[in-house]
Each structure stands twice: as C-alpha cells, then as structure tokens.
C-alpha cells in the first residue's frame, strides 16, 4: 500500500517565498485493528520457561596409557677388567692373572681364606646342620581356621563379551600352569564377534596369558593328556573334539570330522589311563558318549547312547567322571535330566552297559565324581544341593540342605577325603565337610553376586583351586594347610561316616518294604473274600483298609469286583503312590528323604506288581518272617522273599 501525497505547484509561482501555515494534524492513513482477524488468535497468558542457575558442566574420561610390562633378561659378559686390558685377548688376561698371583699378598690372603673354607667344608661333611629332627612325628594338628585366599585373578582379555570360563584344566606337571576353556553356554547368546580363543595361563604372570588356542568353535571343555603334557584336548561348542600341541602353534593339529562328532556341545572330555595314552572319551548333551583314539581321529572307536533304563528315554549327558581306581572301563555320567548313571564300557550286552539310574536331582547334574579315597562313594552336584551316594543304593545317602542358588560345579579334594568344594551361581565358593556334614567355609569370589561361578578345578596337590566366573575371570585360591593336609584318622573317619549313612539308608528302605508288606498282608486278610482272583485283593483291599483313604476308593468299592478290577488296574499304581506318600510322611518323620524314597519306592512297586502277588498264606508267612528279623537284613530278606514269591507262582501255575 503506497502512501503518496501529491504536492503540486504552478510553475509561475516558483520562487515565491514559502508561506507556511499552521495546519492541524490530519490523519493521512490509518490501519485499524482488524477485529475479525483477532478471532483467529488465542492469548497465551503464561509460557513456562526453564531457567537454571547452575554452571555448565561436561563429562570427559581419560585413561593413562597402560604400561605393558614385559620381562627381559640381561646377559652379563665379562667385565671389571682395568681399562688398559682388552678382555677379548686371552693373552693379556692371562698376563694379568699371573701378575696377580705373583703378588705375595695374594698368597697370604688366599691361605687364610682357604683355611676357613676348608674347616667349613669339613663341617658340612661331618654334620648335617639342617637335619630335621622328628620329621615323621606329626605335630598335633591345631585346626587353624579354614581359609582360602585368592592368590591371583586372570581376567578375560575380551571382557565385553562376557564369556564364561567354562572349564579349567591344571597342567599335570607344571604346578603353576592351567588351561581354560571359554564359551557361553546360555542358549542363543553367542554373537558373531564372540572371540573363540581359549587361553593358557601361568600364575607367575597373571597379566598376560601364556598362549592362545584357536579352535573353530568356542571350547566347552579342556584337558591335558596325562602321559604327554604337551597335548591338550578340547571339546567344542559344536560337538567337535580338537587336539593341540602348544609347541606347534595355536591351531589344532587334529580334529574330529563334523559328521561323526557330537551334535551338541561336548561337556566333558577326559583322557583315559591306557597304555598308549592316546584314548579319550567325550560326553555331550546329545545323549551319547564317544571314545576316540587320537591316532585315528576319523571316527570314534566306540559310541554309547545314554538311555534311561526304566522308560527308555534318551538322556543328555552333562558331566562325566572316569575314575581309574574303579577300573579302566567304568565311569559315571551326570545327565541334564538329573539322573546319574554308572556305566561299564566293557559290558557284553547293552543292558549291562548302563545301570538303572540314580534318582535325586531335579535339574542337570553338573558334576559327578567318585571319592578319590573310597571309590564306592560318589557325589553329584546339581540343582540346589550336593548329594552323596553309594553304589548299591539308588537314592542318595546324604543330601545337603537346599541352597538359595544353583550349584554349578563341585569336586572332591584330592588330598583330604572329607572335603568337597562347590561353586555357586551367586559367585560363592563353598567347602563341605563330610565328617561334620556341614559347610565349613563359604566365600564370595566374584565381585558382585550376579556374576556366578561356572567352573571349579582343584589342582592335584590339593593346595590350589581355580574357579572360573561367568565374566570370564579365573580366580586362583590358595587353601590354608588345614584344608589340604590329611590328618591321621581322616580316611577311616570318612569311611565310617559314609558307611553309617549307607547303612541307615538301607535300613530305611528295608523298613518301608516291611511296612508295605504288612499292609498288603492286612489288606489281604480283610478283603480276601471279595476278589477270587489272586491279583485283585492287594489292589482294592489296600485302599479300603488304609486310614487316610480317599473318596475315589470308597466310591469304587461298591462296584462289582470284576469291573472294579478292570477300572482300577490302571489307577492302582497312581493311587498306591499317593497312599504310600501319605503313609510315609506319617510314619517316617525323622527322615528327610521321604520324597526321594518314594520315587524309588514307586520303581520298586512297579517291579513288585509286575511280579504278581499270590496266596495269602504264603504272604502272611513271609510277612511274619519279615517282621521278626532285624532291619539290617531286611533288604536281603526282601530279595529272598521276592525270589520265593516268584518260585511259588511257578508252582501255582503248574
């Protein structure tokens, strides 16, 4: 919009004097507010504005350059010669020497020194001044407080990936060296850039690893060969077994072909005590155990499937123990299903190869090991407890109270038969004493409780223990003397304790069996009229006569015996289980393995039912006998009874 004010004047009037007149203000142009536009806008009364009267800060971090210490040696060559003599010329040296020797002072001094030296030499020859008196006399063992101090920590050179130190193997000869396998066994947590090298460390040099081993896939288990400590066997995450010789380099010098290897990570690889020292066994969660000979690595020498004998289900192996004391072909396997198997490689039939499993754990069994001093007893570590077993019994003798966290690894002390070391998921390391049946030491190893321990390995001297954490660090503990030196009576003490526990467990079993027998007897006598068939009475009779019986049984009791039989047969086992559980809880309060005993009882029940019960008279007779005889012989008696029953059944049929 233009504001124009035209000003005009006639030409003839130019030059005339301007006459100014006062003129009032005139509105030339105005722009009034547009009310309609105002409607479109709102008035904002208050606008919040943030103001901070604080000095501006910024964050920086800096790190000094890390000094990498390295070790160097220095060689001392000859020196000290006076300036005028050149050390490289032997003539001048000899001249110097001769000059020295000619000096009379030299001889005098030498004489005096020679005298004193000779007297000392003679002294040494006549008396051993450092002789230890009473060396075989054992000092009264002052039980100094059990202590485990951390001597060294080997940190994972690649800490960001949070690899687990999954398995540690001590060098059999060099006492300060160990090899560690790093991998992550958590499902689907391996990333593409996970470093797959495993390392060998030396305690004297905790900052730098000695050397690396480069497998094709991360190692889950590792072990040095007994005979030739230069050979290291490593089991990989992809199921392949590889061999290294550190002298030859960091690449494996041999590996098993992928087709015949395991399909799952190899959880434990163990060298066998054979003459050639070239045999090893591997166990994996794909349910097989394979034996390999390092000379022919193209296929396993032998393979065995892990089957649960009772229901023929496949079992996944998670730990293995090969104890040479038991024989070269016997070994123990711990499975993911919580069962422990004792296997014999040389058994003729596949049935004998794997014994019926030991029930007990509710989760994977991470470690199983026979006691190095008394090999009939073994321990297993899994879920929240450690359990001690004996070969003869299918349920554990001793079970530690459930811990608040999972236990991830365990091992017996190689020098003290009563100690058991365990590692836990909250980063604690515990020591359990079998004689007192208590944990005598519990120590935090990792920096925070959310970093668990994943591996534990005791050195064969019993003095050092290596524990591996889930952050890849390895902690070396040194035990106080009281924890690694055996006392005189310890071996027998442990044996006594374990035997006592075994006996107790056997007695418990025997007692339970007696009780069952008694009930069956009683039931038979009561419900004997009801079912003519030899099979029914125990089934139905049992239920109706028991005090705590449940509604189902009473309802069914009114039906005809035949239909009853038909309908109840499948339920028999289930109901009997429940009934017996109730009984057990009542009758056997003092024993805390009630549950486990039941599972095993169930197994025994199945066996008994299959065998068939027979004549009441015979039952009553045997029951009577069972009652009279002592509990100790109870088990044998039971076995005898069953044999008798079987025999009588045969007679009946005839």
């Amino acid at each position, binding site marked *: 919009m233009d504001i124009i004010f035209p000003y005009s004047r006639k030409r003839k009037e130019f030059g005339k004097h301007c006459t100014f007149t006062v003129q009032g203000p005139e509105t030339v142009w105005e722009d009034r507010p547009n009310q309609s536009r105002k409607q479109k806008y709102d008035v904002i009364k208050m606008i919040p504005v943030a103001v901070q009267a604080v000095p501006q800060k910024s964050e920086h971090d800096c790190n000094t350059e890390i000094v990498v210490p390295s070790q160097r040696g220095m060689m001392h060559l*000859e*020196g000290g010669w006076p300036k005028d003599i050149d050390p490289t010329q032997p003539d001048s040296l000899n001249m110097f020497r001769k000059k020295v020797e000619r000096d009379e002072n*030299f001889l005098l001094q030498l004489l005096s*020194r*020679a005298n*004193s030296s000779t007297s*000392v*030499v003679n002294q*040494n*020859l006549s008396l051993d001044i450092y002789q230890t008196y009473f060396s075989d006399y054992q000092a009264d063992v002052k039980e100094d407080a059990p202590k485990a101090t951390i001597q060294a920590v080997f940190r994972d050179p690649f800490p960001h990936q949070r690899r687990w130190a999954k398995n540690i193997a001590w060098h059999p000869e060099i006492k300060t060296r160990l090899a560690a396998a790093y991998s992550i066994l958590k499902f689907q947590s391996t990333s593409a850039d996970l470093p797959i090298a495993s390392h060998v460390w030396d305690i004297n040099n905790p900052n730098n690893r000695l050397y690396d081993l480069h497998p094709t896939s991360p190692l889950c288990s590792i072990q040095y060969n007994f005979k030739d400590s230069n050979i290291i066997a490593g089991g990989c995450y992809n199921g392949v077994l590889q061999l290294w010789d550190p002298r030859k380099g960091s690449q494996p010098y041999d590996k098993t072909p992928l087709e015949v290897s395991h399909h799952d990570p190899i959880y434990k690889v163990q060298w066998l005590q054979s003459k050639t020292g070239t045999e090893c066994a591997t166990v994996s969660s794909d349910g097989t155990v394979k034996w390999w000979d390092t000379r022919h690595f193209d296929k396993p020498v032998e393979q065995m499937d892990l089957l649960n004998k009772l229901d023929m289900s496949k079992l996944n192996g998670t730990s293995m123990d090969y104890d040479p004391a038991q024989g070269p072909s016997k070994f123990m396997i711990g499975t993911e299903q919580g069962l422990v198997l004792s296997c014999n490689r040389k058994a003729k039939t596949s049935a004998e190869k794997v014994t019926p499993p030991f029930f007990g754990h509710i989760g994977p069994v991470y470690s199983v090991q026979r006691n190095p001093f008394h090999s009939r007893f073994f321990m297993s570590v899994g879920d929240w407890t450690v359990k001690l077993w004996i070969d003869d019994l299918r349920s554990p003798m001793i079970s530690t109270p459930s811990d608040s966290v999972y236990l991830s690894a365990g091992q017996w002390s190689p020098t003290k038969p009563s100690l058991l070391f365990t590692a836990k998921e909250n980063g604690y390391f515990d020591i359990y004493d079998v004689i007192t049946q208590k944990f005598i030491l519990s120590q935090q190893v990792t920096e925070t409780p959310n970093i668990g321990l994943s591996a534990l390995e005791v050195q064969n001297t019993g003095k050092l223990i290596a524990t591996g954490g889930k952050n890849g660090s390895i902690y070396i503990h040194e035990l106080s003397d009281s924890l690694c030196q055996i006392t005189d009576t310890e071996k027998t003490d442990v044996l006594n304790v374990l035997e006592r526990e075994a006996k107790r467990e056997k007695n418990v079993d025997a007692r339970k069996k007696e009780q069952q027998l008694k009930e069956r007897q009683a039931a038979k006598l009561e419900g004997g009229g009801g079912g003519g068939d030899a099979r029914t009475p125990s089934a139905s009779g049992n239920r109706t006569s028991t005090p705590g019986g449940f509604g189902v049984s009473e309802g069914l009791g009114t039906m005809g015996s035949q239909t009853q039989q038909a309908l109840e047969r499948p339920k028999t086992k289930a109901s009997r289980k429940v009934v017996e559980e109730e009984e057990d809880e009542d009758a056997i309060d003092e024993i805390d393995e009630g549950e486990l005993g039941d599972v095993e009882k169930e197994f025994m029940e199945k066996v008994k039912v299959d065998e068939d019960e027979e004549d009441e008279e015979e039952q009553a007779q045997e029951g009577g006998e069972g009652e009279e005889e002592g509990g100790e012989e109870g088990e044998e008696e039971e076995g005898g009874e069953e044999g008798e029953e079987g025999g009588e059944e045969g007679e009946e049929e005839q």
Partner: protein
Amino acid sequence: MSEVEDLIKKIANQRGVTGCMVFNNQGIIIRTTLEQSLTIHYAALITQLCNHTKNTVKKLDDGDDLTFIRLRTTKNEILVAPGFSRIFSSHLSSLSDRDYILVVIQVPVV
C-alpha cells in the same frame, strides 16, 4: 704359583666339593676349577652379594665385619670367604685384606 695351584686343588678335591674359584673384588676371575661361563656368572653375582652383605654388617655395627657367607640352597651349599680385616693379626702387612674372594661350591654329603 704352584703353591696357589696346590691350594686350590686341595680344596677342590675335598669330598662333596664341586668347584672352587678365586676372584678379585672387581669380579675378575683369577682362578677357577669350573667352566668359564658359569664362573663368570658366579663372579658377577657373588661379588655383588659380598659387597651388599658387607655393607649391611658394617652399617649395623661399625666394629663388626663380615667373615664368611654360607648359602645353603636346595641343591648345594655356596661358601664365600670375602676376607676381612683382622686387626690383631700379625701376618698382615697391608691393611686391606679385602682384595680377593674365595668361593667354594659343595654338595653337603654327610
């Protein structure tokens, strides 16, 4: 000359003695029955040890002096005779008796 030789030989032939060496206080080898490189090694280390020990003893008590060092190790015993000033001794003409060091290595066999 031959007396020196005889002396050294006599010491070295004692039962259990594996070697005998004479150095001067600078570490120069005068005489030895062991192999050369090993002797050099000993010379360097033992002269240092001698000096250090002597200083220690002197500083603790000025009138005291180091007379002998016996190093018993797991494998053998090292005997070092550094020489010392025997104030009352009559046969010393010079004040310093510290010019030479005699070292004997012995495996103590009783």
